């Protein structure tokens, strides 16, 4: 395994960089002042690269994803997108956040800017959800609802997918199955992806690179390039 400093050289998957992120500082206001969450972090992300952010719970991984996803703009630093335009970003939140009053298929179609039912159906098929396309989310298990959220993120034909602990609290068997289904989708629709996880085995199985983050305020402790033979894909 190749371990190096955060500012080290980039791998083949990074030939085309779509995002350069520089976070100087991010803090949340509190009654007694402010709580620093993120320290200095630099990240360059390749167009077809999967980078895993691994660190202890509450260290600021999700905050980092929210900044990249444009949901939190109050931070000191800069997001530099290739071509200066923000790419389509598909987000998979920690909780599936499906609309309970819409069917599985409608949840995908509503996320698309222009309805593409064929793509929605293909994704549902790839993620083993085809029989449940007309089911309301209430009838789904947590693992299935998480897969619907993954399908929804890919349904917008994203250039970047943000995955916030997408398999947390699933039993190991279901988590492994869901990981394989995600990889099936990723193989045919390769995008850049940022995966937040605290499971190092999961990061090794999925990612090209792993950023190990230290506790609050989060900072990069180590960058690990995962050799291709160690990855599941």
């Amino acid at each position: 395994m190749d371990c190096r400093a955060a500012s080290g050289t980039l791998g083949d998957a990074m030939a085309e960089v779509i995002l350069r992120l520089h976070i100087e500082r991010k803090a949340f206001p509190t009654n007694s002042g402010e709580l620093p969450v993120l320290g200095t972090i630099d990240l360059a992300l390749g167009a077809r690269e999967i980078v895993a952010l691994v660190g202890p719970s509450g260290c600021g991984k999700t905050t980092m994803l929210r900044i990249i996803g444009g949901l939190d703009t109050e931070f000191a630093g800069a997001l530099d997108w290739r071509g200066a335009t923000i790419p389509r970003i598909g987000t998979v939140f920690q909780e599936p956040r499906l609309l309970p009053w819409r069917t599985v298929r409608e949840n995908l179609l509503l996320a698309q800017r222009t309805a593409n039912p064929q793509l929605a159906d293909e994704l549902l098929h790839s993620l083993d959800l085809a029989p449940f396309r007309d089911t309301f989310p209430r009838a789904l298990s947590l693992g299935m609802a998480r897969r619907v959220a993954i399908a929804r993120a890919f349904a917008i034909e994203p250039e970047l997918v943000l995955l916030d602990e997408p398999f947390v609290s699933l039993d190991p068997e279901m988590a492994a199955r869901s990981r394989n289904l995600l990889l099936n989708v990723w193989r045919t629709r390769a995008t850049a992806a940022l995966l937040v996880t605290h499971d190092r085995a999961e990061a090794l199985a999925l990612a090209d690179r792993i950023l190990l983050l230290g506790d609050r305020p989060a900072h990069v402790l180590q960058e690990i390039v995962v050799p291709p033979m160690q990855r599941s894909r």
Partner: protein
Amino acid sequence: MFLLAWQIAAGLAHSRLFPTVTAVLSAMAQQTMSGALPWNLAITMGRVAAAFTLSMVLGSGLGIVMGRSRWLDLWLDNTVTVLLNLPALVLIVLIYVWFGLNEIAAIAAVALNKLPNTVVTMREGARSLDPALAEMARSFHMSRRRALRHVILPQLAPYLFAAARSGLALIWKIVLVVELLGRSNGVGFQIQIYFQLFDVTLILAYTLAFILVAQSIEWIVVQPLERWATRWRR
């Protein structure tokens, strides 16, 4: 069962102050044939529809804005509470005194009585909107219109139905008082006339017709619509 008990009891009492079911039904038929019952019922229904629409539209809009804006909520909360606790009769009398015994004043009096009820219910709905779903809509760049239709309104639907149901129940009652005090037609006015004549049969005939219409709206419109809107819960 209730009707049978009523028929037997009224037959035994044999009083013009406690008419039998058949006498009431016969009076209803006679008033229908003469056109008086459908005419007065239609006038009352028109007032109910106008007051209901007005109070639901204004009350929902105000309630949602108050639920989302802390500043506006603080500013208007006392006014809403005063209106909520103000006796219906006081509001009706004051509006008639200030604006005259006319149709607009009558509808406004009914709507204003219902308004604070809708505001309070919809304010609770707006406060309970799930921020996680709003964030999801934002992350997928849903347009405001799409987010309103598919993310916000479905969350408000149970509150809208609660406000509509309690609103209808309140308006049915208040509209008759408004007609009794300041109009020269409608079911409320007719009941007042027959009260002065001590004609309980016709009072009950108009009351029964009114209850039948109110209940039909509940069964034919409100309940099926609510079942449809909340079908995903089943």
